[in-house]
Structures are given as structure tokens and as C-alpha cells.
């Protein structure tokens, strides 16, 4: 498909975003298992079949489903500390995990949702084997919310708390060669350690008049709103996005499984382009569900399923929400990171992309603490240390995890007192990786990074000028910088050079 510029506005592109964010509670949603998902070797495999449950579905549908499921078997990997009888569908669910409920409520509140009077746990029928019970437990935590974005209010239709599904074992793992479950003689293999890990599902309303790039930003903002609670998981696979995309004259298409946020705009763009191309050539856009491929394009997965088939989870009574507790949660709600982002841009004068990087980094906490303790330090310098200098050092095969908060505080304290220049920071960090217990003074002396006094600097530059009379200013500056790098502010060096040249 030619990569031409699409006028998304003219195409009346509409999109909805659904974000699935795993919560970092200690235990799973309905059992006492760890949510760490760290075990690699299964201790057992449980093999199960599933069969259709009679419903209002037509008899033909039911018979087809019966034949389909009859030919399939599900192999579930059991992990010692991350799988229990609840996960293997051998024990009723325990009580709803209050920690997870609290995190989900905080997220719903941060997204300005209405909180229901009580929590009704539902069973959502799932037939692909990714849930041992053939259903996923899910519940509404909030409705009718919104999030500010570029002066507009993005509607948040619903926040739900649910159990994550079991992860399918794919290529490279001891499984079915990465094919779709149905392709391997009807055998699908799943790992049960992800099953039951709490996640919030955040659904936006239908979004119009946003570019794919803006939609990606909205998804990012929702993601960092979740992270405001500091109790959500992060890393690969802990946040997943689904989309629905339509253009004028077409149908709504569901796109599943955008694993990387950075891909979202591309996926929307490619999907809208695919739909427009179909319409242009007189074909129809089918109402269907598509899966995301690595390059951001999509492939047909299945026809769009009908409405979710849900019925109450009778093993978990409705959970009353205590008004006092809700009030306390509201009062103690953390500052949404979306506000933080705004504050970084306006108060700390960070450029937008740097602000986003800081908020998305693992060093957000210490960044803020440093700015609090050393307000006179230039925020851009601090932000750069955490978003790029540390990465550079890491690339040199040095273990930046050996750096502790005290090292950063000491360095930025020196910087604030103008006892070092910012150019000295990389060398100091490397030094503390190698010698974490060295005193700052010793390090500065050893590395020759103690800042020169104005007189000393003047002296050095004057001597250089004297040694090479008539040298061009630029060249003199270069030589001087080479001599004093890390010990003097380049601005001061420049001034000294100007002064020496005048003589």
C-alpha cells in the first residue's frame, strides 16, 4: 500500500481505545497466588476440554460450537507459587482482593468516573481456552469519566477490574510452534501464572477529530494516569491496547493486541488506510476483529463477536463500597501524572518530549525529590541525566543499578553550589558505579573535576594565549576547553578567552 498522507479528518476517522493495564498487587484478584510471573519451569501440566453451555443461541450455533470444542484440548502449565486450585478451576474464587480493588478505584477516580454503589462481579464467557473456567471474572469499577487532553475532555466510558487470561505458549517456547491454537491438532498450551493477575480495562468513548498521533498520546496519558497510583505493573506485556477504527462509509473494525504504545499511531494509520483502500476500490469493509502484526499492519482474526456473554459470578457476593472508605481514597488520591506532566512543562520549563520521558521513566521519584531539595539546579540538566546520561553509561556495560539515591543527591548538591559543572556529571556517575563508597571530595580530586576558581581559569587561558600569540579566538577556545573540561563552565571559558584575546 502506498504510504501517502491521509487526511483523517476528511475520512471522518473515528477510533475507540481500550487499555488493559496489569495491577501490581501482591496477590492475584481472587486467590493468594503471587502476581510476579517470574517462574519459568512448569511443575505440572493440566489437560482439559471445554464444551458449550446451552443458551438462547440457536441449536445450529450450539451444535457447531460443540463440534469445534470437541476437537480441541487445552494444556495448562502449572507454576509452583503462581498457580493454585483457583487458577486450575479446582476451587471457588476467594474473596475479591481489596488491594487490587483499591488500585482500580483510584484509577477510576483519577479518570473522574462515577463509582457504583456496589461491585457486581460478572462471568464473561470465553471459549478459546485462555481461562480455565471458560469465563473471565470482570466488574465495573467506574463509568462516565473523562480525561483532559489538549483543552478537550476525552470521554472514559468505563473502567473495569478483571482477571488477566492465561498467556498462550508461542514459538520458541515448548509449545505449538507459535501457530494459532486451532492449527496444532486442536491443542493449545497456556501458562497459568498470568491467569488471575488483576488488570484494569479502560474504555474510551468514540473519539473523533483526533489524528493517529494524538490518539497515541491519549493512550499514553491514560497509561500514565494508571501509573500515578504507583501500583501498576510496567514492562513488556503489562499494558496492552485494543482499538476500534472506522472511516466514513465503512464499518467498525476491532483491532486486538497492540503490545507497544509506540505502535498505536502506526496501527491506526495502517488500519484506516486499509479501510480507505477497500472503499476506494469499491469493496466493503467487513465488521470484523483483526490482530496486530509486528509491522503495525493487521490480519483477519475472526468475525466481530456479538455482545459479550455475561452472567453473574455467584461465587462472589456483591461487594459493598463503604462511603467513608471511598471518601478517604478520594482525599488521598495521588497527583495524576498528567498534571505532573503539565507542571514539569510549565514550572520546571522542561521541553514537552523531555517531560514525557521523565514521567515515563523509572527515575520519576528521584527526579522530583532532587528538584524539591535542590530547586536551583536546572531541571533540564537533571532530566537529561535520568533520561539519557544513565542510558549512555548503561550502554558501556556498566551497572547503573549500583548507583543509589545518595549519589545523585550528592552530585546535584555540588552542582547547585556551583562546585562542579554539569559536564562533570557523567564521569562522576561512572566513578560511583565503580567505587560507590568513595567520598565526593576524594572523587573530585582523583578525577580532577574540582571547579576552577575564576582566577585560576583566567590564569590558564592567559598562559595559553601567551604561548600561541595571534591564535584565532575559536581555536584558543577549543584548546582551553580541552584543558579545563569538567572543571569550568564553558560560558566562563568563553568569557576568559574573549578577555585574553582583547589584550
Amino acid at each position, binding site marked *: 500500500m502506498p504510504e501517502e498522507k491521509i487526511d483523517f479528518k476528511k475520512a471522518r476517522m473515528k477510533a475507540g481505545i481500550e487499555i488493559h493495564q496489569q495491577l501490581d498487587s501482591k496477590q492475584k484478584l481472587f486467590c493468594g497466588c503471587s502476581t510476579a510471573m517470574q517462574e519459568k519451569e512448569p511443575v505440572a501440566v493440566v489437560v482439559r*476440554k471445554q*464444551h458449550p453451555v446451552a443458551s438462547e443461541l440457536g*441449536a445450529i450455533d450450539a451444535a457447531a460450537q460443540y463440534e469445534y470444542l470437541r476437537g480441541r*484440548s487445552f494444556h495448562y502449565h502449572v507454576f509452583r507459587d503462581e498457580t493454585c*486450585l483457583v487458577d*486450575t478451576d479446582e476451587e471457588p474464587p476467594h474473596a475479591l482482593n481489596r488491594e487490587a480493588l483499591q488500585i482500580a478505584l483510584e484509577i477510576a477516580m483519577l479518570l473522574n468516573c462515577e463509582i*457504583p454503589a456496589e461491585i457486581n462481579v460478572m462471568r464473561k464467557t470465553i471459549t478459546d481456552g485462555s481461562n480455565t473456567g471458560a469465563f473471565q471474572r470482570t466488574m465495573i469499577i467506574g463509568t462516565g469519566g473523562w480525561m483532559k487532553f489538549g483543552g478537550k475532555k476525552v470521554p472514559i466510558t468505563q473502567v473495569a477490574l478483571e482477571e488477566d487470561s492465561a498467556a498462550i505458549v508461542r514459538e520458541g517456547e515448548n509449545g505449538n510452534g507459535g501457530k494459532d491454537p486451532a492449527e496444532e491438532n486442536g491443542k493449545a498450551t497456556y501458562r497459568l501464572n498470568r491467569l488471575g493477575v488483576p488488570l484494569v480495562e479502560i474504555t474510551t468513548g468514540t473519539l473523533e477529530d483526533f489524528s493517529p498521533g494524538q490518539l497515541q498520546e491519549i493512550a499514553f496519558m491514560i497509561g500514565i494516569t494508571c501509573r500515578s497510583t504507583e501500583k501498576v505493573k510496567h514492562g513488556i506485556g503489562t499494558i496492552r491496547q485494543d482499538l476500534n477504527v472506522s472511516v466514513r462509509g465503512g464499518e467498525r473494525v476491532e483491532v486486538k493486541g497492540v503490545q507497544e504504545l509506540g505502535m498505536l499511531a502506526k496501527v491506526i494509520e495502517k488500519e484506516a488506510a486499509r479501510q480507505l483502500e477497500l472503499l476506494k476500490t469499491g469493496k466493503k469493509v467487513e465488521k470484523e476483529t483483526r490482530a496486530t502484526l509486528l509491522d503495525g499492519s493487521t490480519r483477519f482474526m475472526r468475525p466481530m463477536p456479538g455482545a459479550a456473554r455475561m*452472567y453473574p459470578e455467584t461465587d462472589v457476593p*456483591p461487594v459493598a463500597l463503604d462511603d467513608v472508605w471511598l471518601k478517604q481514597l478520594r482525599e488521598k488520591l495521588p497527583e495524576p501524572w498528567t498534571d505532573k506532566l503539565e507542571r514539569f512543562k510549565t514550572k520546571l520549563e522542561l521541553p514537552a518530549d523531555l517531560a514525557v520521558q521523565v514521567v515515563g521513566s523509572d527515575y520519576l521519584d528521584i527526579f522530583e525529590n532532587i528538584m524539591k531539595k535542590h530547586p536551583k539546579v536546572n531541571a533540564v540538566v537533571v532530566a537529561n541525566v535520568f533520561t539519557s546520561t544513565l542510558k549512555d553509561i548503561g550502554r558501556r556495560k556498566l551497572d547503573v543499578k549500583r548507583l543509589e539515591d545518595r549519589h545523585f543527591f550528592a552530585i546535584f548538591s555540588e552542582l547547585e553550589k556551583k562546585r562542579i559543572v554539569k559536564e562533570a556529571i557523567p564521569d562522576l556517575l561512572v566513578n560511583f558505579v565503580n567505587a560507590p563508597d568513595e567520598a565526593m571530595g576524594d572523587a573530585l580530586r582523583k578525577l580532577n573535576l574540582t571547579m576552577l576558581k575564576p582566577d585560576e581559569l583566567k590564569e590558564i587561558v592567559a598562559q595559553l594565549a601567551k604561548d600561541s600569540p595571534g591564535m584565532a579566538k575559536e581555536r584558543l577556545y577549543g584548546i582551553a576547553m580541552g584543558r579545563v573540561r569538567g572543571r569550568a563552565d564553558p560560558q566562563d571559558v568563553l568569557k576568559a578567552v574573549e578577555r585574553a584575546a582583547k589584550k
Partner: protein
Amino acid sequence: MYSPEIEALLKKKGVEAGGRVRVTAGKAEYEGILMPRVVAGDAQSIVLKLENGYNLSVRYGKGFEMKKLAGGARIKHKAADVAPAKDASKPTVTVLGCGGTIASRVDYTTGAVFPAFSPGDMLASFPELKEVANIRGRKLFDLFSDDMTPAHWQAIAAEVAKEIKAKADGIILMHGTDTMHYTAAAMSFMLPNLPVPVVMVGSQRSSDRGSSDNAMNLTCGAVAAVSDVAEVGVCMHGTTNDDYCLLHQGTKVRKLHTSRRDAFRSINVRPFAKIWYEDRRMEVLRDDYKRRGHAGRFALDDKMNPRVGFVYNHPGMDPAYVASLANHFDGIVVAATGLGHVSTNPKGDPLARSIVPALKALVDSGMPVVFVPQTIYGRINLNVYEAGRILEAAGVIGNGCDWTPEAALVKLMWVLGHTKDPKKVRELMLTNVAGELTERTGTETFMT
């Protein structure tokens, strides 16, 4: 039930459960189907099933408004009436519903789950059944298995006898799992010389879910029901996998786990058979069972005396409590520790309180006192320790017996239904009637 205020509002608006409504509460507005209020939960909130399938509770209070909308759903079960075609080449199996829900129909519009029992429902839920047998069936009663009484056992046994007379080739009893092993023991005593298999099945996972163990248990149960094992059996999952069921002997089976699929285990014996789900193959594990078409004469023998009590012995048991049992029962079963012990205090410890005098008084008054092992596995042996010898001398019944507590309890009810003569009771209790007592225990029978 909703709170009186909400009920009044619903009445005023003419809204019933299943009706579509729009509800406003403050800024929020919701549309959905009004759900009936479940027992648990906040009576001051109405529950709506939203368009997207979720149930949502909305607090009734200031700013609450409700508008009746057109449409809605009727929360009512309609049986699937697929007339099952009869295949003359296949045997006929009767399915009798004794409570417990083995098949369900879910109405996703309202989220309501209905038990489904008609043969049409069953065949709609378990199409594989018709590959095994022609199925006919009816529901005897609708109750939790914990509500079963000896009177229910008698009713079931009578229905089984009726079906045998009506030439069923096998009978399946659908039953809640909690007391399934009691009913299995009762059927074993009440239905001597069965000409055809009587197979009990249930499900440990509710039948409204696609992962329920119901389909496999019922299918394997049907295979057992058309087999030549003319005994009372319990057919349930053999492992946590959906690989095979075990067909357990009715007097030797026990539920040993609150929730697992493979909760039912044979105690002190091998199961009759393994039945593989995939190919419906029956792998017989014993040869000491009655074959279909044996020479014995079948006759219903359902006399029972339900006045039998069950006592679980424990350290510090109060002798006065034991003595008081005389006021309630015609016979008692004591779950004794170890090889069959209770406090006998032969060494005269000042703190210990022997219950032997209390037990002996019961025995002397003509009341049978039957000992069973609270270890579940193993055999009572009152010859090894002094405590045992004291109890044997006191006249308790059970030395050498490897019965399960439940089989012994049911047997005592059945024996007391036939005789009150202490000597005859003792003799009958110690005689193997329905496989409840064995003379040897194989080494392979523990925790398998």
C-alpha cells in the same frame, strides 16, 4: 428483595424484573434491564444489566429517577424440546434427577441460569450421550444434596426399582456431590442383586461454565450404565485432567476434597473401572463385581431406621455428652482415632476422662455402638492396644472392619430397619452385605 422504598417505586412505575428502564442518579444515567435483587448485597441499590452485559448497582437516594422503557426480557426458562430420536441398536439408560444441577441453560440477556433437566435439555447440553445410549429421564426432586434424608433414599430406591421393572438397561442418578457417597451406600444396601448398573454422577464445577466436569462425568457415567458392572457405582473424575473417570464401588467411596474434580476416591479398595473420556473405553480394574444377567434375585429392600447418630471422638470428649446420646438415637456410630480408640484411661490419669463407662452403658441398654476409623483409610483393630481391648470387651462393634464412616452409618440405619435384636444387629453389622467390608486390603489402595 429490594428495600420497601424501591419495591414501592417499582410498583408505582409498573416495572418488573426483566423490564427495561432508564435510571438517573445525579449526573449519571444508565439504561438496562432491571435485575431481581439477590439475597446478598445492598437492598438500597437497584441492579441493572447494562447493554454491554455488566450488572451495575445504582444507589437509590436523592436525585434518583427511573423511567420505564419499552422492551425487556422475560426471566423464565424454556425447555429445549428436541424430541430425542430412538436408536434401536442402542441400550436404554434412564437418568433420574435427585437434585444437584448437572445441566444448565444460561440466558445471557438477563444473566439468569436455569437448571435444565428435560431429556431434550440434556441432549442439547451433552450431544455425545446419544452416541452411547437412548436416554430417558425425569426429575425426582429438586434439592441440595445436604437436604437429603433417608426418606429421600427410599424414594430414589423405589424409582430405581420401577425403572428396572420397566426394562432400563442402566440407570444414572444425578446427584449433588456433598452427600453422594451416603446415597451411594444407601442404594447399595437397599437394592441387593441389581440386574443392571446404577451409576451416580454429579459435578464439582457448576454446569453453567464450559469447563464443568459435568459432560465428562455424565458421558463416562453413561458408558458405565451400559457396561456389565451390575453394581451401585459413583462415576466421577479420576484426576484433575479431563482424561478419565473412575467408577467407584457405592459402599467404598468418599468425597475427600471440598472442591476438586477428583474429590471422590475409593477407600481401601480399587475402583471398579477407569473410563476414558476421549474414546469411551472402559478399563476394568477388578473382577469381583456382579455381572449384568447374574442369577441373583433382585428385590427392593428399603427398610430404614433413621434414628442413628454419628459422633466424632476427640481429646477431652465429655462422657456426659456420650451418655446423653441414649435420649436421641437407637444406635450410634463413633468415628474413633487410630486403630479404633477413644479415651479409656486404664492408667487412671487424674485429668483424663474415660468415655468407656458411658459407651458400655449404651451397649448394655441394647444400643449398638459402631466404631469407624476417623483416619478414613485403614481397618479398625481393637486387639493391638489396651484401649482397643477394653472397648472390645465393652461390646463396641467394628473390630476388623475396614468400612468408611458413611457406609457404616447407612448400614446401621438399614440394619436397624430390619431388626432391633442386639445380637442380630451385631451379627449383621459384622457381615459383609454390599461390599462395605473386605478381608484384605491391597497395598495399592491408599491415596490413589
